[in-house]
Structures are given as C-alpha cells and as structure tokens.
C-alpha cells in the first residue's frame, strides 16, 4: 500500500508555485456577463425560463477520476435505475463525455444536480434543446 513513512502534512493544499496560476478547466470559469444591446433577447430568455412546461435536463459529464463502478452505484442508489440502465448511462458518460440522466421540471433537475454534486459527480442543468 501507500508509503506513508513521511506523512506530508498538507496534501490537499494548493501547491504554492510562485508566479504560476492554477489551470482551471474552461467549464469552471464563469465568463464575464455579456450585456449586449439585445435586451429584447434577454427578456425572451427570462420569459422562457419561467414557463413551467419547458422541460429541463440534468447532465452528468465525464471526468478522469470517478470509478465506473462508483458512477453506476450512484445512478442506481440515487435515481433507482436498474443495474443495466445505470451501466448504460455510466458508459454513455464515459464514452460520449456526457449523458442526460434525468428530464423534467427545472426545480427537480436542479435538485438532482445538487445531489450529483454531493456525490462528487460533475453535473449541470440545461433546457432540453
């Protein structure tokens, strides 16, 4: 197992490399708000967002860390998917980079996304396109 003879005290701390800045996946960088002149367009967006009938989806994205068995386990225990269905979704995440794991009202999709974040899975919410 691990060689822990010298227990490094601060393993989880950001390496303090002078002059370097952390590499952040583009996904995690909030782009600066774009306030264009197309205010009408923004209004349309807002309007669409509050419409109850527009379906939303929870998307789980691939990452190089989570074990395939873990992702399957989460899909089974949280969503209650059968083992074959959970495995199918897990493989879709792994092979295609993402999978839609749930579709429905926005609030529900946000709850699922929050749950996925608790599980350490990389999930986002989006309107069904």
């Amino acid at each position, binding site marked *: *197992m691990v060689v*822990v003879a010298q227990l*490094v005290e601060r*393993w989880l701390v950001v390496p303090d490399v002078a002059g370097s800045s952390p590499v952040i996946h583009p996904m995690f960088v909030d782009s600066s708000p774009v306030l264009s002149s197309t205010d009408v367009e923004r209004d349309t967006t807002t309007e669409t967002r509050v419409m109850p009938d527009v379906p939303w989806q929870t998307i789980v994205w691939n990452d190089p860390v989570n074990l395939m068995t873990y992702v399957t*386990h989460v899909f089974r225990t949280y969503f209650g998917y059968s083992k074959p269905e959970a495995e199918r979704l897990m493989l879709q995440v792994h092979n295609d980079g993402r999978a839609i794991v749930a579709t429905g009202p926005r609030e529900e999709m946000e709850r699922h996304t*929050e749950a996925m974040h*608790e599980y350490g899975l990389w999930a986002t919410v*989006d309107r069904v396109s």
Partner: protein
Amino acid sequence: MRIEPEITGVLIELTPMERRLLSTLLVQYDEMVHDQLDDGDLAGDPALSRLFPNAYPDDDEAAAEFRRYTRDGLVERKSANSGLISAALTASSDEERLTVARDDAEHWLPALTDLRLVLAERLGIHQDDDPLPENELADVYEWLGELQWALIEALD
C-alpha cells in the same frame, strides 16, 4: 486494507498507518470545504471548483442563483459525510476492525470521491489518459480508489 461485507454493513480493516492517513486527509478536506464559504472565490483553487461545479456554465445569473441556494447545504452535507468517517476512526482503536453500517458506508463513498477529486487536481489529472505521476501522492490517490472500489463491491 481488508473489506468484507457483513449482514448489516461492512467490516473494514485498516492498518494504523492507513487510519492516520485517512484522518489527516479528512481534517484537511473539512477545512477546505468550510474555508471556501469565507471568500466564495472558487477560482482561487480549481479543486474547489470541481467539488462545487458550475451548474449553469452558459448562464451566469442562473449559476449564481444555484450557488446561492445550494452551497451552504452542500458544504454541510459534504462535511457530514467526511465527519462520519472521522467519527468511525476516532471511536475505534488502531487494532480494531471498523464495523460500518450500510447507510453510513453509503456516506463514506462521496467523501472518498471528493478526496480523490482534490488529489487528482493536485496530481494534474484532467483527462482520461493523463498519466499518474510516480510519487507518494499518487500512491495515496490509488489507495483511496482501492478503498472505494472495495466498499462498493461490499455494498453491491
């Protein structure tokens, strides 16, 4: 490390060194998830951005709102998950095997995942085919993966 399924849960046998390792990591993890509440600036640490992903990458306003409504609860639950492992380690002597109830073991899994997510960030693992460096930190990362894998096997 040895893990066996039991009727009501899982039996976990860790060496004293493994126990110390896990405890150390969990203390740091707990500090990490709580500290981010103070400044709220996750961009300062990409690992935190992975623990609390942006739910709306294409919509800043919705992203901020999601953060506002979920962050405190997520911190609380992530902390509670890791606290369950810490408590189990504290409540038993070095020589004892841990008897972890099924429900508790389910909460071990996300905490172990989060530890691996942070270590992966420190190890520079961003893509599926990124090589694992040959160092002690990478050994810890792999060990956590084995522990999690064995726990899932026992639970499934």
